[in-house]
């Protein structure tokens, strides 16, 4: 069952953490997405997830490559750009015993994939829907995505003049029952929330701020951006400096921490306060929006209210996976065909 050293700690299923890893990442060194991968591995291990029941879906993007980097015992489906939700829908209906993890990017989900995002949430597909949110299109070399902050700059100097779409408030508006935001540099919080997500039945929307060290400076303050620009060595065309991983932070409830990346960019991360009520829908929306206007990312479990049953339940499907039903369960009898033919005569 386990290929690691016999002394490695195992979980209740007898698996070591090594049993939850995937192939080697091909992302840039220091990419926030890799930190998320690490926490998915940890949370799955700690939550005693049966690897073979895990299915991993994604669209296209750097983020969408990551399902190859965790839980090799599960099946993966890296599909087409923006259509991960429909892939998750089809597979989760075919086999309701699967544990569905969807990984997408802000471009993948908030631009081309907006329609599918909205409708997956509406249908309450049983899945953890992770948006690895860096405000840019990493894989196509750094164009703005729809979550880019208004007024933020690209490396090329281009300025984003459009307001961002927030996946979290949007999900709450759409009636999602589990909405959280994390920061890839805060593994502790991510771990807790991922474990909660594994325990949840319907759609979990998890927006994880995950800086693209190569293309997005993602500055809260223009000053700091200028600083970088003025003081840094101008890079080669495609060249960049291999950043070491951002140092992990652990932000106490209610506190704000300004995290600086090696390239000098800064993001303000605020953990929700202990008194924050994640069951108050409009209170949550207001707090998140207001926080965002201050240039902060409110993180934590933002909203929870599991009112809507997940889709397989709404459809009143049999308990066995549809995929494994035999011909006896599926094919009506000759007599039944006869009856139908009679009715058409």
């Amino acid at each position: 069952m386990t290929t690691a050293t016999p002394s490695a700690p195992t979980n209740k299923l007898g698996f070591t953490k090594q049993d939850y890893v995937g192939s080697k990442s091909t992302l840039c060194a220091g990419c926030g997405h890799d930190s998320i991968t690490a926490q998915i591995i940890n949370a799955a291990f700690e939550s005693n997830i049966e690897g073979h029941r895990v299915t991993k879906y994604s669209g296209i993007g750097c983020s969408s490559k990551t399902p190859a980097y965790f839980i090799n015992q599960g099946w993966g489906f890296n599909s087409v750009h923006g259509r991960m939700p429909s892939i998750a829908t089809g597979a989760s209906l075919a086999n309701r015993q699967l544990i569905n993890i969807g990984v997408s990017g802000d471009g993948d989900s908030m631009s081309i994939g907006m329609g599918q995002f909205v409708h997956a949430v509406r249908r309450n597909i049983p899945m953890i829907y992770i948006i690895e949110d860096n405000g840019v299109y990493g894989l196509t070399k750094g164009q703005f995505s729809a979550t880019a902050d208004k007024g933020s700059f690209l490396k090329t100097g281009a300025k984003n003049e459009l307001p961002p779409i927030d996946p979290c408030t949007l999900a709450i508006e759409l009636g999602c029952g589990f909405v959280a935001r994390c920061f890839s540099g805060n593994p502790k919080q991510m771990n807790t929330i991922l474990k909660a997500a594994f325990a949840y039945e319907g759609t979990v929307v998890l927006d994880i701020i995950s800086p693209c060290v190569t293309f997005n400076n993602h500055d809260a303050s223009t000053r700091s951006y200028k600083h970088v620009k003025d003081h840094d060595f101008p890079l080669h065309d495609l060249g960049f400096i291999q950043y070491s991983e951002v140092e992990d932070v652990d932000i106490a409830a209610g506190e704000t921490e300004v995290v600086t990346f090696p390239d000098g960019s800064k993001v303000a991360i605020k953990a929700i306060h202990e008194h924050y009520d994640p069951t108050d829908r409009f209170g949550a929306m207001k707090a998140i929006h207001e926080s965002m206007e201050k240039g902060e990312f409110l993180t934590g479990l933002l909203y929870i209210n599991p009112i809507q049953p997940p889709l397989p339940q709404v459809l009143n499907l049999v308990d066995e996976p549809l995929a494994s039903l035999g011909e006896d369960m599926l094919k009506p009898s000759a007599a039944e065909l006869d009856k139908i033919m009679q009715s058409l005569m």
Partner: protein
Amino acid sequence: MTASLAAPSPTQGAKTRINDFSIQVATVNGSGSQTANTVLLRAIFQMGVFVSGKNLFPSNIAGLPTWFTIRASAKGYVARKASNEMLILMNPETAKEDIAKADVGALVIYDEPLQLDKLRSDLAYIPVPFQKLVTASCPEPKLHKLVKNMIYVGVASRLLGIDMEEVKKAIAKQLKGKTKAIELNQNACVAGYDWAMENLPDQDHVKVVRDNKTQGLIIVDGNEACALGALFAGVTVVGWYPITPASSLVETFIEYADEYRKDPKTGKSTVAIVQMEDELASAGVVLAAGWAGARSMTSTAGPGVSLMSEFIGLGYYVEAPGVFFNVARTGPSTGLPTRTQQSDVELCAKCSHGDTQHINLYPGNMEECFQFSYDAFDLAERFQTPIFVVTDLDLGMQNWSSKPFAYPAKPYDRGKVLNQQQLAEAKDWGRYKDVDGDGICYRSLPGTPGGKGAYFTRGSGHNEYAQYSEKPEDYVAIVDRLKRKYETAKTHVPAPVFRNLGSDKGILAFGSSDPAVIEAQDVLAEAGLKTDYLRLRALPFTAEVDAFVQEKQVVYVVEQNRDGQMANLFRETYPALATKFKSVLHYNGYAIDAKCIVDQINAFEQK
């Protein structure tokens, strides 16, 4: 009133057309005339006469002109016939134009106040006081509009000599169980019949005479037949999006699934049906469900196929099964959504960017709609690829008589799937390894326990072990194998069927063109031109198709599109024979008729 029938008619003295005529009914859609027309059709059918109906309806919901054509044919010709012997004109907006287009000598039943009898002198007019009759026969004024149509059924039945008992039975059949509706409609019908009996002389232009041709036959449309095929094939996941003329395929399936796809023990459903937000999402559901081991399908039309193009290419390249029904309509773009065409031939054959080739099934009648829909799920799982079942509005939404469907006893072919034990025993299994040399690899299903068989599916370059690869040799190995797989399909798809009169001149057609071709063959043969007819039923072309095109001196490719799309596929597949293929085309949105085929073949022959 009797005056009109007595009026000079050029057909007087002509031979009575017994069980061999067309009736065209012009109404307004949303007025319930579809029910009246179906009753009339069904009544003729119950008289034992071959009959077919074509509903020519507009792309709106109510208030626009609609025509319904009923063709009775002792010889069993069920194609659209361009000429009509009887007209029933209920729509003031089109009546004048309808009269102008009428065939000389036609009987014209019309609403009296329209005063059409002054328009032409070479027609036989039958004005009917519908308003008066309807008021007398129906107590509820708000239902007059609906019931009015039943009156013409009564009048026509009397003129044609249809047994009133058959009409009443047809009404009961049509409105299954709705007692009050049945009674009201039957009353209206009788009122029309009685009025005609009293006020109209007999006519000898067209007649229905009881026959025994339809004993044991069913009446069904192609969408229902396909839905039944899918039902018996055990489809378990349906992702769909409404679009004319494909919606009723899934909608009929939903009705049957309600009855036949509930677990008797728990009452729970053994099929997941989800109306998705669009066709892209439907395609995603189908492919992912197929990937995860379900039998999955969707139903759409041209615009939907265009939208699914990217996903179809994914399905082809990652080798995910799924059944895609394309009930084709008149393109391009929105085109004529309620008219028929066969103009997605090349699209379905090669849908998506890059090099792609798809298995296509082309049923040509109701039994095949049923059987090919059944087979499509086997093919999808066997070949691990999207399968197109291509019908069209004519097959899909029109009424066709058919032999009852044979029970598909052949057990499901779930294809090359390795279970837990097989995976445990497999040596060096690779998802994309061609172990058997037929281009088809062994797959595993998500959720299979045992710690073996998990793999990563991707639309990007991959090697035999489903690992990411950009190596040229890995890429070529995969796409060459896909080509081999397509070759293998030649021995698995339905072979063509023949109707050979003994000739070196071939006709090649597919799908809904079949009845028109058969009729055209007979017409041509009567005039001295014998033909052999191959009805193509699938892509890729099988050995039988090869042999036919090799041996014929000329092959008339009959199809319902402007660009000769199927002929194109033949020209590129058989370059050495390319000059043999002559396109016989029909693409105005109406169902194809025999005359247009005969005329075009004659024109070629005279060259």
